[in-house]
């Protein structure tokens, strides 16, 4: 008798608790959507500032070049080989920049823009930078195995981790669309270990 009653109670509980819509855990449902960021990759530079919580926030700035495919013209930044890619379908497997000096020149400009700090629009969105202001630019040198070396005017050991990340990511994406190169930050007080701007490194 008791067992039967217990069974009935269990059944009733099952029926009752199963009713309606319950809350759930957070469920992942596919990858995140990809938005288009203006201007087009050829005509912009990406600066990495920090969000209110210290997270890395990319800012895209128009570099002022019109989007005109001029094959014989070498341009600073990574635009050259992109154009070449477009002209040569199937050439996407080729390496990054064909002329490192052009890239370095563009990267130097980009890093200068980063050092200049967030603009008015950026600040309105709550973006900040952790890098100290500096009158001197950062120089960019090539390293072995496609690496970059940033020669900074300020003491690297005084830089916060976020500031280093800002430098690393901005520099990496300035020279390579995939942001792959390892970046070594070197200041007057010495160099930090090479780092990449991979996801998960903030």
């Amino acid at each position, binding site marked *: 008798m008791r067992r039967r009653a217990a069974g009935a109670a269990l059944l009733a509980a099952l029926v009752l608790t*199963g009713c*309606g819509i319950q809350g759930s855990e957070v469920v992942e*449902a*596919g990858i995140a959507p990809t938005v288009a*960021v203006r201007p087009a990759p050829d005509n912009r530079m990406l600066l990495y500032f920090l969000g209110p*919580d210290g997270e890395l926030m*990319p800012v*895209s700035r128009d570099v002022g070049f019109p989007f005109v495919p001029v094959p014989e013209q070498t341009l600073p930044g990574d635009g050259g080989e992109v154009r070449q890619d477009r002209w040569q379908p199937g050439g996407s497997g080729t390496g990054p920049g064909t002329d490192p000096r052009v890239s370095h020149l563009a990267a130097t400009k980009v890093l200068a823009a980063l050092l200049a700090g967030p603009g008015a629009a950026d600040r309105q*969105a709550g973006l900040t930078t952790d890098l100290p202001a500096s009158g001197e630019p950062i120089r960019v040198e090539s390293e072995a195995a496609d690496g970059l070396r940033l020669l900074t005017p300020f003491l690297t050991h005084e830089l916060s981790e976020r500031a280093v990340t800002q430098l690393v990511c901005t520099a990496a994406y300035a020279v390579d669309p995939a942001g792959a190169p390892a970046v070594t930050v070197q200041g007057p007080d010495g160099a930090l270990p090479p780092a990449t701007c991979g996801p998960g490194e903030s």
Partner: protein
Amino acid sequence: MKACVHPREEPGTDPADLPGGTAHGRGAGRAGDAEAGGDTGPHRARARLRRPRPFGLRTRMVFAFLLVAAVSCGTTAALTYRAARSAILEQTQNTAVSAFREQVDALALDLPLDETILREMLLNIARQGKPRPWRVYAEYGALRVSSTDRPASSVLTPELKARAHAREGVPHTSFQRVVKGGTPYLTMAVPAVFRTHHEQGTAQPSGLVVYAVMELREDEANIEALVTAARDGALPALAIALIPALLAARGVLRPVRELRRAAQSMGRGRLDTRIHAKGSDELSELARTFNESAAELERSVAELRRAEARARRFASDVSHELRTPLAGMLAVTEVLDEDAGALDSDTARAVRLISAETVKLAVLVEDLMEISRFDARAAELHTDEVDVADCVRKTLISRRWTDPEQVHAALGEGIRARLDPRRFDVVVANLVGNALRHGRPLVTVRAYEDEDGALVVQVSDRGPGIPPEVLPHVFERFYKADPARTRSTGSGLGLAITLENVRLHGGTVRAANHPAGGAVFTVRIPL
């Protein structure tokens, strides 16, 4: 299986015709009493069987059936419901998530984002809610923008936000169902990523996270409808389950009832009761076993009855055969008595002994004949409407019990009863004679009508009473209270004949001891 009772006997056969009422030994249950007569046993048995049973087999079977039906209905409904609910929710979620992702996918942003532009975009997305309207919220840096009046939603859980802002691994779309204030919501979070390059660029978080909050009320209503449908389906199913339940109960109960009726019928003495047993289930097995047992019982009882009948016929035949020579002997006893004086003393004693014993033998044979007739149910009642007081008085006078020191009669006058005068005379004479023989005067005979309208004749004496161990046996034939006294002046059948005569009148006779001493025999005959 089908079953029905087949009494081969005519329904009109009176069960009372069959021997069964035990006259003796019933007194054992009542200290100091020996009762004989009408038996109320079968009536009580019938009353017991008619009692209603709230937790009988039928109720239990119906409950069991309903329980099984309820469990299966419930389980099926629950499983169906769960599956359907999941399907509904999944459909909604999938549609909503992909629609939302599509919407976000189509965005083109300037980084950093401008609040006004962002708001424009959100309003645009909010108009595209699929499958239901949604409210859209966005977080970008310090900006909190929404498609509604309030920049942030309380429905969005910190877990969801944390997941959307997570830096580890590839950014994912995620959703969560939240029930807030009784309303279910689907909340979705998409961190917008962008490609750093057309083809090769990695997906980088843009810093923008867009949330959508969709009410699931409509889905809940759909699910409610499912519950209602499940219930509406289950209740008729239960009601329908009642029909096989009752049928099954009937299928079991009918044979059981037949069996009970048959057993009852057997108990009332109809040993030829059989059950019609068909089929091969356990109940028909039982019915067959019952039939076999009944047949066996009938056979044994018939055997016993035949043996008993033979014994009775023998007793009857013996007394019949004894009677004729006795008739001749009895006719000449007077001759012997008269002439005995003229013989020498030894011969005279012998002759007188023969004469006296002949008379006693004649009485004994007569009594035996009477008992045989009772046993053979050949005793007839020749009733006449008589005055009871007159009757008793005449009995006493004809037996010459007229000495007021010996017998006192306290008779209610004017009681008229339909009696067999000869048998009634035997009853009164036997009781008074018994009292005079075994008790001591004064023997009192009372006759009155009791409150139930029955004639009561009571014979009491002032003797030592009847020993308790003898009481249950006083009406037995040839019962000797004192084994040493092997012969009494009576035949030893007097009280047995009294009992039979009273029974023939439909009455009872009871032997008891009066608290003040002395035996009391009470005859009760319905008027």
